[in-house]
């Protein structure tokens, strides 16, 4: 018999954790002399009450879905991939090369090509830490952190010395050709008399992210590979017993994980900027950790958590626009959310379990 019903663990615990994080955030806002209620209503108003706001919220959500799935898949194999950031950067390189050097006839084909390229580049960047963990026993947490730094150096070199158009100031590539521009939500949903999503960056990549959620769900819970990844994650010795190669599984899980991180670049690079800039990833790789944790590494959970962080990002931007609250407040809120949902979750779970136990006993 379980101690606590599964739904309580999946829903109640994160919910209460978020509430605690929110309460503390409110205290922080109070402490810097602003009104939490006003801040909250500004955030909700800016992020959820208008289509443009949604356009931004969903844009960020798309990023976080990819990086969240990246962390989640690795988590299932009990690999802590902190390298989503670097993998996404290199994925961006893949997108840029695909968009710049292949004459695509139509955006839809370009999208497929760029997706493959982004995933391949991201996967390649994750392959090395995966390989080193599997074959040489180097700690994946450390190697992926190092690979974030190295990715940044690689990207900088490539942008400054190789891909930057002559005379340009930005360490960025040229703009991608017209044929690779992805339709935004505005292109898709706005009509002449109803200008929905005006100017917001959400684009078709969002649907790819949804597809990725479904694909990851199928992969993890419906295929033999997913079966092996989860088995390996639960018990390496059991995996060995069953003939599941730990090395192979580690490497494959990292490849998939890195590929998903790489695909994040589709959204920022192909969908939004339409060129590759230096800091296209903007820490989304790290937010992915929180997203995966909150989402309990389940695609649906990842989606919901990504939405929450998308809201935080967009709401935070609104705060920065209309108040004097420093932008770092959002970092603090994120930290609190990660802390309470990820690391201090037992603080909520333990008393809750006790509660269910007493309640359950009373009922029996």
């Amino acid at each position, binding site marked *: 018999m379980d101690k606590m019903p599964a739904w309580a663990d999946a829903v109640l615990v994160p919910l209460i954790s978020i509430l605690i994080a929110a309460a503390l955030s409110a205290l922080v806002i109070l402490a810097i002399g602003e009104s939490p209620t006003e801040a909250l209503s500004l955030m909700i108003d800016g992020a959820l009450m208008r289509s443009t706001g949604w356009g931004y919220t969903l844009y960020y959500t798309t990023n976080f879905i990819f990086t969240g799935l990246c962390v989640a898949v690795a988590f299932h194999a009990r690999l802590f991939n902190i390298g989503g950031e670097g993998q996404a950067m290199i994925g961006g390189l893949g997108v840029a090369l695909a968009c710049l050097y292949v004459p695509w006839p139509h955006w839809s084909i370009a999208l497929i090509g760029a997706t493959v390229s982004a995933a391949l580049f991201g996967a390649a960047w994750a392959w090395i830490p995966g390989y080193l963990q599997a074959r040489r026993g180097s700690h994946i947490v450390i190697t992926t952190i190092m690979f974030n730094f190295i990715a940044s150096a690689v990207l900088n070199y490539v942008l*400054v010395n190789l891909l*930057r158009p002559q005379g340009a*100031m930005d360490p960025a590539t040229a703009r991608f050709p017209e044929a690779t521009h992805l339709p935004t939500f505005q292109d898709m949903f706005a009509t002449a008399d109803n200008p929905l999503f005006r100017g917001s960056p959400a684009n078709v990549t969002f649907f790819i992210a949804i597809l990725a959620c479904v694909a990851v769900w199928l992969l993890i819970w419906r295929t033999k590979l997913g079966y092996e990844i989860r088995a390996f994650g639960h018990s390496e010795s059991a995996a060995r017993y069953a003939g599941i190669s730990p090395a192979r599984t580690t490497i494959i899980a990292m490849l998939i994980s890195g590929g998903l991180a790489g695909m994040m670049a589709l959204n920022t690079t192909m969908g939004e*900027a339409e060129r590759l800039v230096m800091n296209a990833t903007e820490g989304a790789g790290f937010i992915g950790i929180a997203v995966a944790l909150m989402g309990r590494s389940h695609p649906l959970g990842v989606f919901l958590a990504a939405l929450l962080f998308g809201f935080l990002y967009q709401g935070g931007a609104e705060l*920065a*626009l209309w108040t004097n609250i420093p932008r770092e407040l959002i970092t603090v809120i994120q930290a609190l959310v990660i802390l309470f949902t990820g690391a201090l979750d037992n603080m909520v779970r333990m008393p809750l379990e006790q509660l269910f136990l007493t309640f359950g006993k009373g009922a029996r």
Partner: protein
Amino acid sequence: DPALIYDLGGKFDKSFNEAAFNGADRWAKETGGSYRDIELQSEAQREQALRRFAEAGFNPVVTTGFSMSSPIAAVAADYPDTKFVTIDGFVDPAEHPNVLSILFEEHTGSYLVGMMAAMASETGTVGFVGGMDIPLIRKFACGYAQGVKAVNPDATVISNMTGTTPAAWNDPVKGSELAKAQISQGADVIFAAAGGTGLGVLQTAADEGKMAIGVDSNQNYLHPGNMLTSMLKRVDVAVFDAMTAGADLETGVKTLGLAEDGVGVAMDDNNADLVSEEMTAAVEEAKAAIIAGETEVHDYSSDDSCPALNF
């Protein structure tokens, strides 16, 4: 009301964005007007901030940093009644008549401080510390090196970049070490164009009793007696002027160089003791020559190469 958008470095970077803030602040104080400003946090917010401000009726919308030019080009057409200003960026005026691009001739300003560095140097070796290795910073370095060589063709210019990640703008410890390294190689004047990292450079130069050159804002006050000068980039004036002009702002492309006092060298009480009359004279002379077109300072960004320095 006008609005101001700072680039990712943030409002108080002690140099570029802070200069913009100072300009806006002065405008607000002098005219009693009010303005909104925002520090960007992510790439996608660039366009968002532009649109939100434009929709809310702010005019003009002033932005700093070359990275704003692309987003402005993307949104300008949607808000024909709003004037946009991109400082350091370039947007084609033919396509977007409601945009003012303001460019600075950093290389000429850097040239002048380079001359001063060469004249102040006793060792014949001077240093340059840049932030992240990007073309703009190379432009500074290249102009500086040319100025140094113009005074003393045998001088050595040691040029270092702090790093390749955005962290390179905020690592004063590394800045210090770079300065120490350059000092140990003989440099006695160091020009820092590296944001927060530069503070470490200036600090170390002061600690070691050498001279340093600030950037963007007038940083002479930071270490009086050790700051030879600062390479001014009058972003504050540009912002002030744009805000003063308000909705009637004249658009197009403005290049601010020595002639317009858009760039220059900072002279004040803090560095009066360090600057000899001879130096002042030479700088004035060179300035006039550049304005007159007699002296040509090569602009790194024109062809991505530098005659005076290897990258």
